[in-house]
C-alpha cells in the first residue's frame, strides 16, 4: 500500500510540476550560455555550477510541499489517525526525492544538446559528480520540507528560494576574498555543492574541466555532508516533538565534522589531474594511432590523414615513422618522439574546422612529421627567428605534398613559398638530404636556423 500512496504522491504532490519547472529553468540557463560545453566533464561540472539556480528552486518546492498539511487544513483530521507522523511523511518525501533526482538527470540529459561532442570522452570521475549533484537536490527538497512544516506560512517558500540563492552566491563571496574560483581558496568551499573548477592552468591555456577530477576524498566529504543534510532535513520533517527535532539536527553537526576532517586545505589539492583522461589509447589496426582518451572522439577524423601522412613520409624520407601519437597541445612539452613515431599536437577541444583532412595532413607533415621545438621559438611569436623557423617547417609540407606550402596568414607564408622554390631548384637527392637533415635537427631540437638548413647555399649543402 505504501507503493500505491507513493504513486499518488508522485502524481498529486508538487513533485511533478516542480520537476518540470526546475528542469526547464536549468535548461534555459544552460542553453542561454553562448558557447556549447566542450566536453562531457565540462558539462557535468557546468551542471554542478547550475545548482546555484536549481537548488534554491528545489528548496522552495520542498517548502511548498511541506506546507501542504497546513494549507489544506487537514492537520486536525490527520492528527486523529493512528499512523505516526514519520510514516505519513515518508511517501511524500520519497516522491519529492524521486522528482529531485529525476530533475537533475533530465536536466543533464537535456543539456547534452549543448555539448560539442556527445561521443566524447566521459570519464568515470563524472559519475560521483553527477551522483553528488543529484544527492544535493534530494537534500534541498528534504530540508525544504522540514522548513515548510516548521514555518507553515505562504511566504516561506519564496523566502527560502531567495535565502538559498543568497547562501550559494553571496555567502561564498563573503567567506574568503579570493572566492571559490581560485585554487588557493580554502577547501571549505566544497561545502557548497555548486562546484566551480578553480583556474588550475595558471600560465597555461585553460582546458576547462576535461582533464581534471575531484579527489575521492573531496567527493566523499561532499557526499557525507550532503547526506547528513538530507537525513537531518527528513528527520526534522518527520519529527513530531520538539525534542526529536533537536535530535534531528545532530547529523548536520556530525556531517560537518567528518567533512572538515576529510576536506583538503585548498581547492588546488581537491582538483587533481585525471591521469586516465590523458592516458594514450592506441588503435590495433593500421594506421596505428595513439591518442589521449580526452581526445578519442577525434580518432575517426585522424585515420585517413594519418595513413596518408605515414605513407608519404615512408616514400619520401628515410627512417620514416610508422605510427601516429597525438599529444594534447595545451599540455605539450619538448619531449622528442621516438624515430618511429609521428607526434601530432592537437588542441584539446580542436574545432571541426581544424580537423579537416587537408589541415590535419599538413599539420602531421610539418617539419617532416616532428612537432615544433618549443625551446626554439622566439620570445615573441612574430619575431624573425620564429617566422623563419615556421617558414622552413611549412616549406617541408609543400615539398612532401608536391604543392604550395599551406598558408596560415602570417608573414612566414611568403617566406615558405620562396624557400620551397629554392629547395626545388636543387637536384632531387639534394632535396631529400636537406629535408632529412631538417627533420633530424627537429628530432633533436638542435639549435641553428632551419631555413638555412633547408635552402642555405654553402655551409650545410
Amino acid at each position, binding site marked *: *500500500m*505504501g507503493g*500505491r*500512496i507513493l504513486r*499518488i504522491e508522485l502524481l*498529486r*504532490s508538487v513533485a511533478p510540476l516542480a520537476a518540470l519547472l526546475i528542469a526547464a529553468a536549468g535548461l534555459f540557463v544552460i542553453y542561454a550560455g553562448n558557447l556549447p560545453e566542450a566536453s562531457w566533464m565540462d558539462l557535468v561540472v557546468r551542471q554542478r555550477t547550475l545548482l546555484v539556480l536549481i537548488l534554491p528552486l528545489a528548496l522552495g518546492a520542498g517548502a511548498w510541499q511541506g506546507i*501542504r498539511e497546513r494549507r*489544506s*487544513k*487537514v*492537520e*486536525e*483530521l*490527520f*492528527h*486523529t*489517525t*493512528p*499512523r*505516526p507522523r514519520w510514516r*505519513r511523511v515518508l511517501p511524500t518525501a520519497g516522491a519529492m526525492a524521486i522528482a529531485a533526482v529525476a530533475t537533475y538527470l533530465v536536466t543533464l540529459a537535456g543539456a547534452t544538446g549543448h555539448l560539442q561532442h556527445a561521443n566524447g570522452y566521459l570519464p568515470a570521475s563524472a559519475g560521483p559528480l553527477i551522483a553528488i549533484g543529484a544527492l544535493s537536490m534530494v537534500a534541498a527538497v528534504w530540508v525544504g520540507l522540514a522548513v515548510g512544516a516548521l514555518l507553515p506560512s505562504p511566504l516561506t517558500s519564496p523566502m527560502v528560494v531567495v535565502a538559498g540563492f543568497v547562501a550559494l552566491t553571496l555567502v561564498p563571496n563573503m567567506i574568503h576574498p579570493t572566492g571559490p574560483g581560485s585554487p588557493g581558496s580554502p577547501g571549505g568551499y566544497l561545502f557548497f555543492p555548486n562546484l566551480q573548477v578553480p583556474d588550475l592552468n595558471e600560465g597555461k591555456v585553460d582546458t576547462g574541466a576535461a582533464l581534471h577530477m575531484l579527489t575521492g576524498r573531496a567527493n566523499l566529504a561532499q557526499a557525507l555532508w550532503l547526506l547528513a543534510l538530507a537525513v537531518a532535513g527528513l528527520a526534522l520533517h518527520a519529527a513530531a516533538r520538539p525534542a526529536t527535532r533537536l535530535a534531528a539536527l545532530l547529523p548536520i553537526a556530525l556531517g560537518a565534522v567528518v567533512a572538515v576532517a576529510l576536506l583538503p586545505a585548498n581547492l588546488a589539492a581537491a582538483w587533481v589531474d585525471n591521469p586516465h583522461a590523458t592516458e594514450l589509447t592506441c588503435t590495433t589496426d593500421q594506421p596505428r594511432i595513439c591518442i589521449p582518451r580526452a581526445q578519442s572522439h577525434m580518432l575517426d577524423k585522424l585515420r585517413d590523414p594519418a595513413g596518408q601522412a605515414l605513407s608519404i613520409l615512408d616514400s619520401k624520407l628515410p627512417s620514416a615513422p610508422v605510427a601516429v601519437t597525438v599529444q594534447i597541445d595545451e599540455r605539450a612539452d619538448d619531449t622528442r618522439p621516438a624515430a618511429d613515431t609521428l607526434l601530432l599536437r592537437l588542441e584539446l577541444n580542436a574545432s571541426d574546422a581544424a580537423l579537416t583532412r587537408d589541415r590535419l595532413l599538413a599539420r602531421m607533415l610539418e617539419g617532416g612529421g616532428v612537432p615544433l621545438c618549443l625551446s626554439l621559438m622566439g620570445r615573441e611569436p612574430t619575431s624573425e627567428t620564429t617566422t623563419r623557423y615556421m617558414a622552413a617547417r611549412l616549406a617541408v609540407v609543400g615539398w612532401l605534398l608536391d604543392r604550395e606550402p599551406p598558408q596560415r596568414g602570417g608573414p612566414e607564408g611568403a617566406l615558405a613559398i620562396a624557400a620551397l622554390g629554392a629547395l626545388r631548384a636543387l637536384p632531387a637527392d639534394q632535396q631529400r638530404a636537406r629535408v632529412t637533415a631538417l627533420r633530424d635537427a627537429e628530432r633533436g631540437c638542435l639549435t641553428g636556423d632551419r631555413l638555412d638548413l633547408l635552402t642555405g647555399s654553402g655551409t650545410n649543402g
Partner: protein
Amino acid sequence: MVRAVSTAETAPTTYGWTIQAEALRVRAGRRMAVDGLDLSVDAGVHGLLGPNGAGKTTLMRSIATVLRPAGGTLTLLGEKVSGRLDLRGIRRQIGYLPQEFGFYRRFTVREFIEYIAWLKEMPAAEIPGAVQRAIERVGLTDRAQDRMKTLSGGMVRRVGIAQAIVNDPAILLLDEPTAGLDPEQRMQFRALLRELGTDTCVVVSTHLVEDVAAACTDVVLIDNGRLVFQGVPADLSAAAGDEAGDGDSAAERGYSAILRRHRDKQVK
C-alpha cells in the same frame, strides 16, 4: 462485501460503554469548554445538540483524541484516554469528520479516501474494497475519479463522511455533517446514519434538531460544557409538554423547553 476480519474485531467486547465520560473537563484555548460532563453512550446514533459555545465541538474533538482531557476521565472502547496512553489502537477504530474538513485539492476523490484509509492503518488488501464501499455509500460513485477541487460544497461534505466511515469505525464522530447538503442528500444521509447505527457508536453534532429527531436513536443535549439531557427523540418531543415554546416542531419546542428549564434551575 467479503473482507478479512482481524482478531481484534472478533474478540468479544470486554468494556461496558463505547464512550464513557466521567466529570470530564476539556480545555479549548483558555476556556474550559467541557466542564464536568458525564456521558455514557453505546452503539446507536447519538445526536449531540446544544447552543453555540455549549462545548459540542470541544467534546467531539476530545473523543476524536485531538484534545487531551484536562480533568475527569474519558474512556473509549474500554481504554482510559490519559497522558501516556498509546492511542494508535483506539485511533484505528475512530472515524472523524471535523467541523472544518480540509482536503488535498489535487487528489481525486478515490485517492483522498484511499489516503485516509492508509492513514488509518487499514490492511493494504482491504483498502480498495473499503474505499469503493465508502464512495458508494455516500453516492459519489460517478465522481470518484474527479479531482477534489472540482467538487461542490455538498459533495466535499460527502467525501468527508466517506473518509470517516471508510475504516468501519467503532466510534464515528460527525461534526455538522449535513451542512451544505441539499434536502435529498440529507434524506439519504439520515438513512445511512440509521444503517450505521446498528453496530457503530455514531455521535452527530448538529444544530438541526429535525435531523436528530429523524435519524437518531438517542439525543444528547449539552449546555455550558455539561450534560443537560439524554434520552430518545420521543422524550425530547415530549419534553415540551403543553408549554408554548419556541420552534416549529415538537422536537424543536422540546429542545428550547429543556434548555430554558435547565437555565432557570442554574439561576436559582
